[in-house]
């Protein structure tokens, strides 16, 4: 019935994602209306909450930072032909890695040495948590989707166990570790801009936002400008052809998962080193899954992922503001919208394509309709 339809490149890359996004927003508007709110008013307040003030922008960028990391993580794995649903667990482990460096060494090392170590530890821990499912896929043939889901649950159990036992601060009833030392605090953007003489309100936005931009550039250079990235994409596109061309698919599965996990692990830096300054239980709160939506709308390219992460950052921040302003509005509306976006931009991405193709054909009829194939 529905063969994939060939669309012109500008439509496929530019128009189709926008149409799908509009469909998701439309359905969400219906939900908003059913709940008894005015969609237009909600949208206005949402934009105002996300971009209307310096503080709002700060929060938006802070959320976007996390989503850039998880979005890039999904995208890198995707280019290697893998679907990494384990961003959630890898981000948790990244936070654990960061805490395991910050807690014992915090009092002994200067910030200039400690912070890079924490970043490396977060990346290493995330990478390790992704490497195991990667290795099991490469050598034992167990599907990475299922394994990474299982690893999310195992990570959360491991974190809970550590926070109940070894890492628990004596005398504190909440499940959290002791506070990080001052040297392990990643400077907030308000501090950095303050050093430069720019006044900026205090928000959770911290230096990780620059790390996120660097990661986006790095991923783009790696995937499209390096030999290793070419090999990775070759395996993702066609493992057999890549194998014939001299690339070892197993190695590439590992490369994709390790980079993906390392990127997801960086969420720990933004959340723990940047804001919380201690290890908690639930600091990832679905960011790993949001990464799937971000990567899908961003068409798995850093140039798309950064704006998509901004969109989600704005939705999270605007949603939080809305929950204050309008009684009866819950932030979970954003989760719903996120799911609808994954539905329309991901699972049903091609549903609108035939209609667009017809529109295109009607608007610019083909000179030769091509030879008929049976």
């Amino acid at each position, binding site marked *: 019935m529905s063969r994939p339809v060939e669309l012109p490149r500008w439509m496929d890359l530019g128009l189709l994602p926008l149409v799908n996004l509009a469909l998701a927003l439309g359905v969400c508007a219906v939900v908003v209306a059913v*709940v008894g709110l005015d969609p237009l008013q909600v949208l206005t307040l949402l934009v105002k909450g996300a971009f209307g003030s310096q503080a709002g922008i700060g929060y938006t960028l802070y959320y976007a930072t996390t989503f850039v990391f998880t979005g890039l993580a999904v995208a890198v794995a995707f280019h290697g032909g893998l679907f990494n649903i384990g961003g959630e667990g890898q981000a948790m482990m990244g936070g654990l890695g960061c805490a395991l460096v910050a807690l014992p060494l915090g009092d002994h090392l200067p910030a200039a040495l400690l912070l890079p170590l924490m970043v490396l530890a977060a990346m290493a821990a995330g990478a390790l948590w992704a490497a195991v499912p990667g290795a099991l896929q490469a050598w034992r043939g167990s599907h990475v989707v299922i*394994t990474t889901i299982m*690893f999310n649950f195992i990570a959360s159990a491991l974190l809970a166990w550590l926070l109940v*036992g070894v890492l628990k601060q004596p005398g504190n009833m909440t499940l959290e570790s002791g506070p990080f030392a001052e040297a392990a605090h990643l400077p907030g953007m308000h501090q950095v801009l303050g050093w430069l003489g720019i006044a900026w309100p205090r928000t959770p936005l911290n230096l990780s936002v620059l790390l996120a931009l660097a990661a986006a550039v790095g991923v783009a250079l790696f995937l499209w400008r390096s030999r290793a990235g070419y090999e990775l994409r070759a395996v993702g596109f066609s493992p057999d052809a890549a194998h014939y061309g001299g690339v070892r698919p197993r190695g590439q599965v590992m490369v994709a998962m390790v980079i993906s996990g390392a990127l997801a692990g960086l969420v720990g830096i933004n959340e723990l080193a940047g804001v919380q300054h201690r290890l908690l239980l639930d600091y990832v709160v679905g960011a790993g899954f949001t990464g799937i939506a971000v990567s899908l709308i961003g068409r798995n390219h850093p140039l798309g992922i950064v704006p998509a992460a901004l969109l989600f950052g704005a939705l999270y921040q605007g949603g939080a503001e809305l929950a204050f302003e309008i009684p*009866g509005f819950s932030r979970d509306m954003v989760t719903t919208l996120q799911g609808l976006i994954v*539905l329309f931009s*991901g*699972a049903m991405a091609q549903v609108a394509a035939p209609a667009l193709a017809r529109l295109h054909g009607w608007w610019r009829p083909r000179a030769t309709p091509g030879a008929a194939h049976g």
Partner: protein
Amino acid sequence: MDEWLIGGLLASTLRVSTPLILCALAAVLCERAGVIDLGLEGKMLLAAFAAGATGAVTGSLPLAVLAALAVGVALSMVHGYACVSHTGDQVVLGMALTMIAAGLSIVLGIAWFKQGGQTPPLPDAVRLSPWFGGAAEALKPVPVLGALVGGGLLGHNGMVYAALALVPALWWGLYRTRLGLRLRATGENPAMVDAAGLSVKGLRYGALAGNGLLCGLAGSYLVLAQNANFVPHMTAGRGYMALAAMIFGKWHPVGALWACLLFGFLDAVAIRLQGVVLPAALGGGAVPVQAIQALPYALTVVLLAGFIGRARAPAALGVPYVKER
């Protein structure tokens, strides 16, 4: 060991396993037809909400169950539309359904009931009542049977027994009927099914409809039997655990049943061991309850890696079928 303790453990294992069994059967049904279902969690959650909301508003048990079934089937039809009719990615769709359900259940719950996403507690008339309670009472004085059979196996609600009865029913349907053979063939080699003049699409939609019904039952069980009302995120990963159980049971209804009972047993044990101190011979300290809770997932990973036998998925699992023209 105290036989009443074993009886109690048996009873809580059965109670905890029931939604897992229903959900795992739902997964067996649709994965055997070649459609991956990562949306179990979402289908179950929204169905639970439907049962809770309808039960609270109408005060009618049949209507509550019916609403849950309808929501389960409706989500499965979205699944079919995106993945069977439009060759969408089945894994992505599962994630989408789960996110939508998690968000929508709370948004609607807050809008309609204004209790932070919960539904009001259901009256007793809407809750499932225990069966064979009299027999359990009568067996009480009998030494071992009273504890094990009376305390463990009897006195559960109808859906527990229905879930257990559905296992052989699904086995019979899948392995002993013509329709079952066709369904399994759809998951292994859809082109052959197509060549035999059957509709791959129709079979997959049918499997998904059954899947939706079973997920709806699982969701309604959570609200009508396990809990007194709907609570946000109340499925708490049970959908994924059922998926794990289905894989652990090697895509077979009976295997899935044993896996669900094992996982349910681990859960029941973990709850009982909360805060219990290990004997000194094992190093003392609290029992690592988290380790027991993570065990189902770890076991599934180990099984999938082929270290305990080989779990083989249906050959055409996750591959959309495009009819040749």
